[in-house]
């Protein structure tokens, strides 16, 4: 019996150790499916997201580039994006972020986004800790949550001790960010902890609770504090504030140009319109989600204002991409599990001529609706869906429209 218990305890410890060892290196998802579908579909609409490489050594850099459209049909229950932060989903600082740009401008802080705006972004990451990581760009939206962009696996190899990160101050001093201020901080902590511990030991060395309690209750409390105790207390009472303000004054003279933390909100205008740019106008007339076949059926009226004939090539929503296979524009990465390469079926796939208005039926069908937990849309308080429709002319030029529509579930 005892051996069984010992084995059981040993197994539990082994399992816990394995669990802890697995730790952040093996994070396979970032909770992106947990956010309500209407937020993932109708807030930040990501597209053209790429990573420059997927295998790095410590100190090497990977650049994430991409574009996004801020949906016009922003959900009513989500605060407007007056405060947003372009972030990267990785398990902690296994990379450091060395550069970040929005619409070509450096982005150091949070930013206010404009509804209907088109932006591009660039984030440069430097590898710090070896491992295999799934990297997403994403937006933290104030009071709403994290809206993930497309993710990709990246392998980092090498010795983490070789990682370097230095920054130059305005006065020209180069500081090592991995250790800057550490020794100074620890020294001050040790100094004060030694002083505090000395004071504690001064009292702990003598009989404490029961004898002192008994003497106090019997009216001999004054004898518990000796004159020497009082002398030491007076000395500490004078010396500690003097020392603190002395050290403060010295620090002030050592860093006369110290500045407060910076907390301005960056102001960056959107790029010229790339989505809903006026060349194509799309009005979705009706959308049904057929639950048994996991298909979003849309009937849309498309007007071509451009001077070229166009065809529908792709529908994208919440990082899912449904490709019209007859157009061959998928650009599918074999690792990208969120692309339905034959997922977009169109009843009349003929060219829409310049000036023509055509009503077409499209079916974006794939099990991805279910596996990515977007099929729960009609069980939300806001059951409107949104996404980007990509159309192409014969020369390959792309026209993008952001669409939004109510969804009617069909259970047959």
């Amino acid at each position, binding site marked *: 019996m005892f051996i069984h218990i010992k084995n059981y305890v040993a197994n539990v410890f082994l399992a816990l150790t394995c669990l802890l060892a697995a730790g952040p290196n093996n994070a396979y998802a*970032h909770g992106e499916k947990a956010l309500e579908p209407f937020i993932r579909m109708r807030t930040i609409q990501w597209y053209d997201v790429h990573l420059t490489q997927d295998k790095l050594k410590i100190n090497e850099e990977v650049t994430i580039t991409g574009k996004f459209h801020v949906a016009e049909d922003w959900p009513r229950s989500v605060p407007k994006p007056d405060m947003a932060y372009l*972030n990267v989903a*990785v398990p*902690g*600082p296994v*990379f*450091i*972020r060395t550069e*970040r740009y929005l619409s070509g401008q450096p*982005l*150091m802080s*949070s930013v206010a986004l404009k509804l209907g705006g088109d932006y591009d972004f660039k984030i440069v990451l430097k590898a710090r800790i070896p491992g295999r990581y799934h990297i997403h760009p994403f937006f933290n939206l*104030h009071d709403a949550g994290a809206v993930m962009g497309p993710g990709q696996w990246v392998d980092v190899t090498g010795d983490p001790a070789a990682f370097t990160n230095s*920054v*130059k101050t*305005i*006065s020209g001093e180069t*500081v090592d*960010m991995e250790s*800057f*201020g*550490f020794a100074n901080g620890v020294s*001050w*902590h040790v100094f004060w902890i030694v*002083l505090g511990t000395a*004071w*504690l030991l001064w009292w*702990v060395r*003598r*009989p*404490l*609770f*029961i004898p002192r309690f008994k*003497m106090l209750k*019997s009216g001999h409390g004054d004898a*518990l*504090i*000796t*004159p*020497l105790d*009082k002398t030491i*207390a*007076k000395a500490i*009472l004078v010396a*500690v*504030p003097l020392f*603190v303000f002395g*050290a*403060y004054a010295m*620090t002030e003279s*050592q*860093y006369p*140009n*110290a*500045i*407060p*933390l*910076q*907390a301005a*909100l960056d102001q960056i205008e959107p790029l010229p319109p790339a989505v809903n740019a006026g060349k194509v106008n799309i009005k979705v007339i009706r959308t049904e989600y057929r639950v048994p076949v996991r298909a979003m059926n849309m009937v849309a009226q498309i007007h071509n204002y451009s001077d070229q004939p166009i065809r529908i090539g792709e529908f994208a929503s919440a990082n899912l991409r449904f490709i019209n296979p007859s157009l061959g524009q998928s650009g599918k990465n074999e690792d990208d599990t969120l692309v339905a390469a034959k997922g977009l079926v169109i009843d009349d796939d003929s060219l829409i001529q310049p000036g023509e208005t055509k009503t077409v039926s499209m079916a974006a069908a794939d099990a991805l609706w279910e596996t990515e937990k977007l099929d729960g849309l009609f069980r939300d308080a806001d059951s409107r869906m949104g996404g980007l429709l990509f159309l192409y002319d014969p020369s390959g030029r792309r026209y993008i429209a952001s669409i939004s529509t109510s969804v009617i579930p069909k259970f047959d």
Partner: protein
Amino acid sequence: MATTNLFDFPPQPYTGEKARLTRAFDYLILVLALFLFIGAFHLHMALTVGDWDFWLDWKDRQWWPLVTPLMAITFPAAVQSVMWTHFRLPLGATLCVSCLLIGMWITRIFAYHYWNYFPINVVLPATLMPSALVLDMILMLSNSLTVTSILGGMSFALLFYPSNWPIFAMFHTSVEYGNAQLTIADVFGFQYIRTGMPEYLRLIERGTLRTYGQYATPLSAFCSALLCTLMYPLWWHLGKWFATIRYVKTI
């Protein structure tokens, strides 16, 4: 009778076996108190001061010196109430802050550094030891709740920022980064990725507590001092309320 030698103890009622047993009881209580305060006070600070103490780029000159002493004077006041009223031990604040620092350093090293890869300099904790020592001294020398509330509470708050500035001033050196002026602490926040803590969550000089002639810290420190004079007696009485054998009698 006054003691004349450094190692002379005050008179005590017990000798022999009784003295040995009461000493064993002392150590038992001390060890339990150590773990209790490491856990409870550290949790209290994590929940109330939280990110202001966790991260370099949260330690601003307005909210950090206001919130930290105000939330940190709580446990010291309650423990002082028990230790001083029943045992004449002037070490409640120092004991609490020592336990807090042990808890903080354990989490900074093991949770933040080894588990989550942050360099420890990014998550250096603040020290409250000078404030705690002065609070203990004022209680011991005054033997007065009123005096300790006013002078001790104020000292606790007013000493906080100057005692931490020697640790954190160097992180406020300015850097030109991304075409903007940032502090080194801000650069840490930008570079070392925190997915669940976007920049806009920082409460940096936000709200109606403004600067006066560009000076922010003295205003915050005195505001905190005033509030600490009120928080101290409140938690003193909480400590007094809990220091009872009422519950033991019913067991």
